């Protein structure tokens, strides 16, 4: 099976918003090439102990489901209605006002009405009504209820894996109904009968065993980080240390594995190394907790907890005082909204205090984990960093708020404060496309795979077009972001829609401007490109 050829941008932008002639319940789901992801492989499912490992693919007629798949799903549905108020409430109170409809990047980019959050939710809500409400049981279709058939299950799969759980719809909903919550439940239910995608299950399985999504073993983590330290020495003449699994360090530093694995995340990682060296922070990386990201978020709540447990466990084993976290999106949703509840309490850690500035991070006093943007903004504010923003003069920068730090955390000003201190040309994108209204990269929640490319380009179109606008208006050539998935996804998105814009992390931008003690004359940026702007 080869990936479908993605149409050219000119064709893809021709989006039609007129709904089909047939009512949605009677419109069959077609697994269009380029718009779905390969199934989770047997090895990963087995490693994680997930149900029904088998060889199959979504376009297959026979999904090889267990015989009693319907009762498994309905029982799972009942269980979740009793465990999550969010879920039960969101099943009941939607009035279908349609405020969410054109807020979804997948709907804006595809025009498929089942990508309207309201209708994506109705896919599940219709089944809920049929089996769990009096009126649905009695009046069926008349009140929007329908039987759970194999076609309905396939429809769920197609559309719940066309949602990146970005929560933009929940900002606009008058009741705060969050499609991410419904998609998460939908995916949990699908997982109960073994319907998942490999771009989620394989990283999750890797993460469970090796501590990171990419399956990098301890020696590999060390090699990669040391390789980046060598690159830092090459660019700056300064030798930075890479402490690993070091007991007695003050701070455990957890980053997404994408940052030490591949470009352009690696430049962000070099930025971390340079910053932490320059301020002389007593910290350590860990090979066991070598991933802050958590693809459990795209599998099930149980899997979030299973993959997240290592962070506190490692902090305890190493005896650190608190934890610092790198630039990543969904990683921070888990750390901010789930970690403490799932794997706390953290009585073995201390309230985070910056050893450099003495600032107490009271906002993290329970979870004891600080976002590096908060940490760095505090350093700059207290004048602890020597910065030369002119080194970034060649860059005309805009900033993409990642969905999760934006809508599940409210981290807006910290990165902007840093950017404004390390470069001179910063331009915001249109108001409707940033901060809490930020548009997704189109590849989050495990959808960043090749076979799904057309859908990713469609879903990322609104973000790309907002970048295009500032490129045309202000000559923007750099798209800064604070997320490992963004760094990978936005790169291909820019190549497709807005060639000429390069994606970079905020700490890459910072490290370019960072004047280090004992550095040689800097002639290149972290990527080895000449500092033409000086």
């Amino acid at each position, binding site marked *: 099976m080869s990936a479908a050829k993605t149409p050219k941008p*000119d064709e893809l932008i021709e989006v039609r918003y007129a*709904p089909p002639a047939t009512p949605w319940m009677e419109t069959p789901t077609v697994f269009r090439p380029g718009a779905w992801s390969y199934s989770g492989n047997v090895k990963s499912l087995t490693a994680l102990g997930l149900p029904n490992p088998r060889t199959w693919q979504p376009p297959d007629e026979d999904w090889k489901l267990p015989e009693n798949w319907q009762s498994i799903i309905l029982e799972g549905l009942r269980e979740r209605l*009793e*465990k*999550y108020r*969010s879920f*039960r*409430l969101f099943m*009941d*109170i939607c009035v*279908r006002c*349609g405020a969410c409809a*054109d807020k979804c990047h997948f709907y804006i980019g595809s025009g498929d*009405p089942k990508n309207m959050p309201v*209708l994506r939710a109705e896919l599940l809500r219709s089944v809920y009504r049929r089996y769990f*409400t*009096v009126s649905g049981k009695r009046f069926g279709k*008349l009140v*929007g209820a329908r039987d759970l058939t194999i076609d309905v299950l396939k429809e769920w799969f197609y559309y719940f894996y066309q949602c990146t759980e970005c929560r933009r719809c*929940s*900002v606009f909903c*008058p*009741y*705060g*109904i*969050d499609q991410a919550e419904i998609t998460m439940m939908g995916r949990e239910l699908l997982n109960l009968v073994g319907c998942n995608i490999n771009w989620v299950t394989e990283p999750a399985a890797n993460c469970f065993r*090796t501590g990171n999504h990419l399956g990098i073993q*301890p*020696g590999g983590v*060390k090699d990669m980080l040391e390789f980046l330290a060598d690159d830092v020495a090459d660019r700056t003449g300064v030798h930075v240390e890479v402490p690993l699994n070091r007991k007695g360090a003050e701070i455990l530093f957890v980053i997404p594995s994408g940052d030490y694995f591949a470009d352009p995340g690696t430049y962000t990682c070099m930025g971390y190394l340079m910053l932490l060296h320059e301020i002389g922070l007593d910290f350590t990386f860990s*090979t*066991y907790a070598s991933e802050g990201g958590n693809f459990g978020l795209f599998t099930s709540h*149980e899997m979030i907890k*299973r993959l997240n*447990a290592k962070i506190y*466990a*490692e902090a305890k*084993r190493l005896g650190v005082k608190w934890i610092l976290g790198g630039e990543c999106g969904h990683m921070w949703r888990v750390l*901010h*909204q789930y970690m*403490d*509840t*799932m794997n706390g309490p953290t009585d073995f850690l201390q309230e985070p205090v910056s050893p450099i500035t003495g*600032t107490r*991070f009271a*906002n*993290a006093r329970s*979870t004891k984990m600080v976002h590096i943007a908060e940490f760095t*903004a505090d350093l700059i*504010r207290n004048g602890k960093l020597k910065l030369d923003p002119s080194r970034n003069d060649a860059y005309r920068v805009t900033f993409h708020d990642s969905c999760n730090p934006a809508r*599940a955390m*409210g*981290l*807006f000003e910290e990165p902007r404060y840093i950017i404004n201190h390390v470069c001179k040309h910063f331009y915001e994108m*249109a108001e*409707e496309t940033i901060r*809490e*209204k930020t548009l997704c990269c189109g590849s989050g929640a495990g959808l960043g795979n090749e076979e799904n490319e057309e859908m990713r380009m469609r879903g990322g*179109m609104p973000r790309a*077009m907002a970048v295009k606008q500032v490129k045309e208006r202000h000559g923007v050539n750099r798209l800064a972001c604070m997320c490992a998935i963004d760094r990978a996804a936005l790169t291909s998105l820019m190549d497709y829609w807005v060639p000429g814009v390069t994606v970079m992390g905020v700490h890459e931008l910072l490290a370019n401007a960072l004047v280090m003690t004992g550095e040689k004359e800097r002639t290149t940026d972290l990527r080895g490109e000449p500092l033409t702007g000086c």
Partner: protein
Amino acid sequence: MNLLTSFIAILILTLSALGIAFTPISFLLTAILPYAAFTVFIAGFIYRVVKWAKVPVPFRITTTCGQQASLPWIRNNPLESPSNVWGVIGRMAMELFLFRSLFRNTDVAIVGQKPIYGSAKWLWFFGLLFHWSLLIIVLRHLRFFIEPIAPWIGALSAVDGFFEIGVPTLYLSDLTVVAGLTFLLFRRVVVPQLHYISLVTDYFALLLLLGVVTTGLLMRHFFPADLIHVKNLTLGWVTFAPAVPKEVGAVFYIHLCFVFTLLAWFPFSKLMHMGGIFLSPTRNLANDNRTKRHLNPWNAPVKVHTYEEYEEEFRDKMKLAGLPLEKE
């Protein structure tokens, strides 16, 4: 099709109201149904809210629409990303009284190969108009159930009829409620996407409310019902001595039938968003996740991969890489 189905349902209701209005069983509408509908409404409403409230909130999943409270020199947005209970109260008040989230509404169109986002406040405006008007109308109706009429109800009615157009005075809220409902119905019929997602019950709710309002207006301005008789009847309900009404007219019976249908259907319908909005976890929780630990009542142990297991598998490789080990 869905619109037609709901329209037929409304017709059936009207005809059945007329059917029993002037027959010996009219006491159903005037003496039995008032109690039945009101009981179903109250009991059903409580049942639904209690049912939601009994389900735990395992995680604090606030949707943050503004800057978090982090460093002291960064200005927190207390209403869009509340860090404490006062902020939450403020945020909820904004949602309840001003429809804050709906105010953000935009629309999108592809213009010149780019999505362009336009302001779309009409839904917010007419939605708010409808809800406030309905509230005022319901409060005004209390004068039928309280004797003597409380001064604030009189004052409210006076303000509502401030312009003193016509005799009897045309209430402003009567006009605006019709405007609101008409807009909400109109967009459901005309906007293709909205038409596509609308269920029978979505139209039914609007038509029923329009039915209630229209019959009310008819009674006030065109086929006047004798208010003394109406009040005798309504006070009779309150004192549990329902009287047999005289000369209240056919429209009054239809009005009653619509109102009772609305009351009885309310707890089983999407109209329960009225109670549900208070419980929405993305709005009614503070964004203080890292400050205060949120407890999940069913937080159960899961199978994890411990460091010991990890070191066991990779010990040789870790040794080779010079990484410290727990066990040599």
